[in-house]
């Protein structure tokens, strides 16, 4: 890959990224897990057909994110007055003056970062699962998707909704729009997709062609 000779990686070892414990690499079979003995971080957790399942989940998430962002999310009515908002409206609530920064951050955290992660994971996984050579810059794309992981906060937004609803339930009548239920499904799918993905296997698949 690089012009200068790069030393070969040690394929016989696996090192826990959290606590730096080194082990001789033994690949677990499907359904088994390799766990760090010292800090109990899960190192490898391969699943049969995980790739196809993750791709299917990612496509579902993609559709749901777009729909959940656009459709009416919550509605409120007091006396005669009524107001309906979408997730995007909620994210862009802080719109005056310096608060616009906060608006953009919120929109990113609940819609755009999850969306980016799904697109990146599709970009990385589709060629691997179809046994094609990895897409261009797939390794960088996957690294970026992993770096974004803590900043994807859709599930926290969902709990935030519950809190907000209780806060105003005695003040006004609150109704759920279709996007609310889409969002609930979305959160479940996010958790499932995250648990299916074996990062070590993806990296292993991405690393192979560079050496042969």
């Amino acid at each position, binding site marked *: 890959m690089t012009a200068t000779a790069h030393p070969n990686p040690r394929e016989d070892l*696996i090192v826990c990224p959290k606590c730096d414990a*080194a*082990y001789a690499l033994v690949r677990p079979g499907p359904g088994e897990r390799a766990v760090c003995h010292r800090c109990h971080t899960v190192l490898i957790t391969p699943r049969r057909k995980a790739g196809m399942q993750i791709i299917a989940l990612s496509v579902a998430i993609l559709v749901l994110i777009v729909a959940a962002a656009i459709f009416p999310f919550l509605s409120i009515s007091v006396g005669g007055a009524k107001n309906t908002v979408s997730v995007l409206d*909620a994210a*862009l609530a802080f719109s005056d003056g310096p608060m616009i920064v*906060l608006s953009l951050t919120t929109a990113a955290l609940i819609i755009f970062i999850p969306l980016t992660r799904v697109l990146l994971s599709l970009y990385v996984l589709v060629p691997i699962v179809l046994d094609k050579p990895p897409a261009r810059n797939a*390794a960088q794309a996957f*690294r970026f998707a992993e770096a974004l992981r803590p900043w994807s906060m859709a599930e926290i937004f969902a709990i935030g909704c519950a*809190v907000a609803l209780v806060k105003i339930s005695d*003040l006004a009548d609150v109704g759920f729009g279709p996007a609310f239920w889409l969002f609930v499904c979305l959160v479940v799918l996010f958790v499932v997709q995250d648990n299916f993905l074996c990062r070590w296997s993806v990296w292993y698949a991405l690393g192979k062609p560079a050496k042969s």
Partner: protein
Amino acid sequence: MVRARQAGKILNAKDLGVVACTRCAQVWPLGVTTCDRCGHRVYRRDVKSLQRVWALWLMGLICYVPANLYPMLRTRTLLSVQESTIVGGAIDLIEYGSLGVALIILIASVAIPLGKFMAIAFLAISVTRPSTVSKNQRQLLYEVVEYIGRWSMIDIFVVAILSSLVQLNILVAISPGPASLFFALSVIFTMLSAQAFDSRMIWDAHQWREGQTKDE
């Protein structure tokens, strides 16, 4: 189930003369500076990481002060304008009788941030001197801090939902206060601070104490 096993004592990669990429876990011989597989920077230990941890920690703490002093929500009704801070809003909720929600707010916006400041400070200090807390417990503490830190954003999302939803012209309108900006910044800075911490140092500190191994 567990297959990655090695007889006897578990060795650190550092002592085996290899270095692992923290992003993709590829193992390289010493001297490699960038991971050829994922392009991430590879380092044995990030010596400057503690400085970054403390700098971001301090920024987070500084932002946390105005986040509690300024109002978080401004509720305008026909007759009055009411401003409430984070703690004030939670006290109002208790008075209305919704104890559960008040607890969620207090835990997410007060207990978790304060606990996180203390936990990160403790971890950063503990790797520079002998600690009585076992390395496993400290690793667990670090993982809890990393996992739970994001949940503090819940209050920001509540404010966002309330201020976009409750806009009923003259009847009642809720708008965000300046505290929301500072609170969001505080959460972001503490998350970055926790990420900057190189958790592998926890396991080194232990070795200095036991084996008196010198470290460069």
